[in-house]
């Protein structure tokens, strides 16, 4: 321990990052009132280079959130409204015959965007859903044996409706594992609804909504931030804590599908993002616990009503690592 010195002043971010993140945070908070914790998770997901699944009732702001995010990143935004007749080509794009050049020309689909909103994803057929698989996992699309790369900052926000399951195709586990986290937004509080109503009054509300959110980042800058998140440090104890937690998910009796290694990697990356957002250069067990719920919710095969309880049990079963006395520090 003698060779170790204490970093008193946290230096997680470098100058300028803070402002950019604060700008996105404030714009998202403006779009989605009274849900700062959801906004934090969305930001963490974005910085961890993960995709986001938002599941909630209609009208709670899923699409608003997605659009606000796309706008604040400043990249290209695309939206797919998933229906049962959606074809894979509608997602990825397709080749058309150009009469003039007498050649097949590739028309890129909405997937070639920086932020893709897949609305009501569980209404698409498994065939169309699987078209997103490659795009989400490898950030590339293969059409007619030709590989097309997607932008590095490609980010999918999918939404789904927990009620009205009639005529839907629930996402398979493999597809779910591609999402970094699943979020629920929930109803806003009373005061937030008050403020929301007040803000909606007035003739200029439409225009304000159209161009109210300024773009505070560009995709290049986002890529830099994502790289910096990936280099946030994770200590040996915290890694052990993550492994223990993963093991705990696999022995829980109600969990049909334990955490996969890919899920564990995602969890670590999200914890890094959380530490980065808190302006810290290393991950603590608090970060791991903070992102545990959205990470586990999307990939443990649990009944929805038991999710909270099971995740609480898993967290409660694993001891937070504390070094043993002075020598270990």
């Amino acid at each position: 321990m003698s060779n170790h010195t204490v970093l008193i002043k946290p230096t997680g971010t470098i100058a300028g990052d803070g402002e950019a993140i604060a700008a996105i945070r404030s714009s998202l908070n403006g779009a989605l009132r009274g849900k700062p914790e959801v906004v934090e998770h969305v930001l963490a997901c974005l910085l961890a280079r993960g995709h986001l699944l938002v599941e909630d009732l209609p009208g709670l702001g899923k699409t608003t959130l997605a659009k606000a995010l796309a706008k604040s990143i400043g990249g290209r935004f695309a939206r797919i409204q998933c229906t049962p007749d959606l074809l894979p080509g509608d997602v990825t794009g397709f080749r058309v015959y150009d009469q003039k050049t007498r050649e097949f020309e590739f028309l890129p689909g909405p997937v070639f965007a920086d932020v893709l909103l897949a609305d009501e994803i569980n209404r698409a057929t498994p065939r169309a859903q699987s078209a997103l698989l490659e795009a989400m996992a490898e950030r590339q699309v293969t059409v007619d044996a030709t590989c097309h790369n997607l932008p590095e900052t490609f980010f999918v926000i999918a939404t789904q409706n927990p009620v009205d399951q009639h005529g839907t195709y629930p996402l398979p586990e493999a597809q779910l594992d591609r999402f970094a986290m699943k979020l629920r937004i929930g109803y806003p509080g009373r005061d937030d609804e008050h403020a929301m109503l007040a803000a909606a009054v007035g003739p200029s509300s439409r225009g304000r909504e159209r161009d109210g959110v300024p773009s505070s980042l560009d995709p290049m800058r986002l890529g830099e931030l994502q790289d910096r998140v990936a280099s946030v440090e994770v200590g040996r104890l915290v890694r052990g804590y993550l492994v223990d937690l993963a093991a705990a998910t696999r022995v829980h009796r109600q969990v049909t599908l334990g955490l996969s290694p890919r899920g564990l990697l995602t969890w670590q990356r999200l914890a890094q993002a959380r530490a980065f957002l808190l302006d810290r250069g290393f991950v603590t067990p608090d970060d791991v616990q903070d992102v545990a719920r959205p990470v586990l919710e999307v990939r443990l095969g649990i009944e929805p009503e038991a999710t909270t309880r099971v995740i609480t049990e898993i967290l409660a079963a694993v001891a937070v690592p504390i070094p043993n006395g002075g020598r270990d520090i």
Partner: protein
Amino acid sequence: MAEAAPGTRSSQSTILVMTSLAAIAVGLAIAEPERSMRASITGSLALLIPVVLIAWILGNRTRRASPVRLLDSESLPAGIVAGLIVLFVMSYGVEVAREAFSGRRVMPEIILIAALRNLTLGMTSLSHRPALARLAVLLDLFLICISSAMAKGQVMIIIVALFAPAGCLWLLLSHRGSVRLIGPIEGRDHFPLATATFLMMAAGSVFVLAAVGPTRAATALIGLMPTSGGTDWNDPDSLGGVNDGDNEVSASQNPQSVGFTESEIYLESDRPSLYDAFNEQYGEAIRPKKQERMIALAPTEVREQKERPSENLQAGRQFPMLRRKPTREGFRPREREAKALIYLKGPCPIHIPLVAYDHFDGKSWSEAAHCTTRCPLEREGKGAWLRVGNPTSTALQGTVTHQVKIGTLDSSPLPIPAQIARLRVGSVDQPDFFGWAQEGIVKMQGRTVPAGTLIDVESFTVDHSELGSVEFPEPSSPLTDRYLASASGGYRIDPAVAALVGTWVSGRTRGWGQVESVVSALRGTCVHDRTATIPEDCPDPVRHFLLDSRRGADYEFATAAAVVLRTLGYPCRLVSGFYASSERYDPRTRHTPVLSEDAHFWAEVRLPNGVWIAVEPTPGYALMAPALSWSRRLVGVINGVIGWLKTNWPGLCLSALSLISALRFRRELADAVLTLGWWLTPGRDESLLLDRTFRLIERRSRWAGNPRPFSSTPRRWYGGLAPLVETGRPGGDLATVLASLERVFYAPVGGIRGEWPGGGDAATACRRVIETWTLSRLRTVRRGIPS
């Protein structure tokens, strides 16, 4: 996550089975000998019914209320602990009550085992709590081990054979419980039935092979068990015997193994008698040189004798006090094969009278004539017990039971304690076989007691405190005259000795008090020395002992006591025999062997109602304590305690007060010590300082009854408490300390030294945290938090 949660139904059932087996085994082990096996098992099963019911109800309720049992850290409610303690103590209470009611005493280890059995039953009924379940299994194992060592028989083998697989099953289940840690219990456990069955069958087949297999295999397996040995070897800790092992073991299972139990060996041999023991112990007697005289006989009286002249070995033996210095042979290291004269089982120390002497001529004691009165032995009931119609006396309180086995002693008087109430000698059930050797000493008529004879005897103990009220009339009865000074032939006590005795008893009225003062004077003023001998030309050994040497063997003490007491007018006699010392007790065989070194002399005083009471004037020897009833003992103990309290009350009050306050404020004290330690050695650098600060706060939190759950991070837990703790004080220090501590704990090694946020330094922040987060504040906070 290594803690198990063995609260499942299957593991609880296994524990119930194990406890049932253990309870039955204990029931068999501690049952009274006359109780039937069926009654013992039924009794144990009756005890189990409430246990099963409680375990079932509590287990179900717990599983329903909280299906998830993650943590094993919950503490036991005080009620449960108190209940378990009551269960443990209960059997002691029951035994005390039983003793008061029926007068029968039970060995303390039996009570202890019963208490442990009750404790196990209590824990089993609460076996939905993992900690108690594990403890119950541990106690089960202990009880099975101890009872299988105490009781024998087929049933015990079956119980052990059933317990072993049940124990294995429990181990399997508890291991599974520890692996499958989290989550509710739903439906039946999927248990590896096939594997378990295979293992059990494999283990069972070994037992079957051992029991009924080919002779060679079975014999080889039996060799693994502790026995008295096979050919040419023996095991000192054996329980049963096979083959020709020479250890002394019970012949209950195999007639070839003959041991220290009742046997019918009636063989004459050259065994040592009591007088041989005397010669070995005290040296040989100095006899006057033979003086041969020629006497003319009439020719008619002269007859040629061809056969060996007959010897008179019977009566008229004497014990001269003038003896040669004893050879030291008795103190040589004894050979392993040495056998005791007798073996004694029962409370010690005890005096075993064999010969009484009533006539003293100044130098030698002569054995009393054989008692002519009929020995009042009567047959009792159907068995071989013979009851003695002892004269009643209030001093005879309570009885003790002894078992004596004749070893190498050759003696016609029975080597048994005095004041017998009833006795049983082997299977001899005829009172005619016995008679008085001397008054109070039973002998076997016309023969010596054969070696190997087992004598059970119940005798009264003497409560000396009752003797104070006995009135000794002035000597007048012709029956007692020969035990008084007037009967001592030509011997008269020396006037100087009489004067000395006068000083001993001055101020004491006639009665037992005088006897006691003589005895205590002898014990106090003279030194016991076995090697001291009286000069050959000494005219008055008593005077020599009391006035000149003040040192001598036990017969000199006893003689002095007898002579002095006779002079004072108390009927008194010298008694020789053995003194069974508790120091000789052999815990392995549970017997006290009596060797020739234990030959001993003491005196006996005759009460007016004819009871002979032993007095022990030799220092280093003790009389047996009276077996008082529990109420009298209780009164004695209470009186003793009260007396002790009266003399020591100031110190006691002080220590009690300090003990109570130390207990009451133990956490405060510990906190003060740790805080002092924190102040004195703050740590070499900031990380160590932060760590020590954190650990002190953790300890305080635990002592305040509000410990951080292990799954909660420091920031989450103490951050939640901070608004409550830091009210009215400058706050925020803990957050700063925790933020830096996180870096110490979780950041990879090699940080950057920077400025302490918010000014000041780490030491100041830590100090403020230590001053703010005190034990008392944490306690207050705990009271404020709803549970």
